[in-house]
């Protein structure tokens, strides 16, 4: 990143109270009139965006929401049979990439094709979407190939979106829609999670990755 760009980014974050080194920005602002003018322009810009009028919802908005909420409650559970395997998978959570996990899998298991890309190991519990978010974001930024994972109940074809975002939405959406408790809910961190992986989950993962490697879809 160019210095100029970085300085602008820092200034923008500084105005939000989020700069990494606010003292540096403050010092430059005190001595660099052009930088100070830029800060003033950004402040003005923020004011203009914040001044945009917020529309008032129609008076019956709350009533319509409550009516819709109650109607939803009255409907039977909408989990389709087709998605049961995906949801069951989401319940145990497993987003794992790369060879590190494979190194932990017993050698007696049947060999499966691995995805082409090797990447850091990442596990996440569906129950904790923040971990999933962070894990997938890190993977995507690292250029990892996440294509083996394809539950995707709610995002069937977004070719213009990043694959990671698609996967993420799917996992979290699936998580929202099922009642299940992750057996890893008490794991304190990723390492603890890796250590606690049991044979069932490992096999599920293998099946998932094998299906993907063969170009097949789960059903």
């Amino acid at each position, binding site marked *: 990143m160019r210095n100029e760009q970085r300085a602008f980014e820092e200034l923008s974050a500084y105005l939000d109270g989020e700069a990494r080194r606010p003292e540096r920005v403050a010092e430059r602002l005190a001595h660099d009139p052009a930088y100070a003018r830029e800060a003033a322009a950004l402040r003005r810009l923020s004011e203009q965006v914040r001044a945009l009028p917020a529309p008032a919802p129609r008076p019956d908005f709350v009533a319509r*929401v409550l009516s819709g909420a109650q109607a939803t409650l009255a409907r039977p559970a909408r989990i389709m049979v087709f998605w049961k395997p995906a949801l069951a998978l989401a319940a145990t959570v497993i987003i794992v990439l790369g060879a590190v996990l494979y190194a932990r899998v017993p050698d007696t298991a049947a060999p499966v094709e691995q995805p082409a890309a090797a990447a850091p190991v990442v596990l996440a519990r569906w129950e904790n979407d923040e971990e999933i978010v962070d894990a997938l974001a890190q993977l995507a930024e690292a250029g990892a190939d996440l294509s083996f994972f394809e539950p995707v109940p709610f995002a069937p074809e977004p070719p213009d979106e990043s694959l990671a975002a698609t996967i993420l*939405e799917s996992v979290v959406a699936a998580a929202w829609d099922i*009642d299940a408790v992750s057996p890893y809910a008490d794991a304190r961190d990723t390492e603890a999670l890796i250590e606690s992986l049991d044979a069932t989950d490992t096999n599920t993962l293998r099946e998932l990755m094998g299906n993907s490697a063969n170009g097949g879809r789960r059903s």
Partner: protein
Amino acid sequence: MPPSSDWDLVARAQRGELEAFAEIVRRYERPVVHFCLRMVGSEQDAEDLAQESFIRLHRYLARLTPRASFSTALFGIARNLTLNHLRDARRRGQDRAQPLDQAPLADPAQPPPDAHARLRETELLVTRAIEALAPDHREVLLLRELQGLDYASIAKIVRCRRGTVKSRIARAREQLRLRLAEAGVEWP
């Protein structure tokens, strides 16, 4: 009596108190509709999306736990719905984003507009400039400027790193500033 916290209301709603959920809706209806409006550009669509956001929130009530900001959960749902809406609109070729040069600008032959008219004109230009941003830049800017959320909360909502939020907000501001300058908005 002090107003109940969001999570107090959620806890009561989880116990089946519909009035507590109604209070949550009243508390957030305007910010959520506003966010949706600035994301999708249509008041009718924005209200529909906001309504659906609250309905989904109600459906997910049992799974909400007070470990994060309540607005993170609510705006996370609204954000997903608006992105899906934009995606569908793009597939149907109904993307509402317009080039900024299509926004009506002041006619130099006309007398200078009064202060109110200038304000309205600036509002329109800012609106158009926001609509012209890419959705991933628009959403972080709106969550920051309209909702006042910190970068960590925005990162949770849009599912990326805090550093990515920081750079997207800066880029959004840069583009907004350039577009407005091109459209003749005066800066201090």
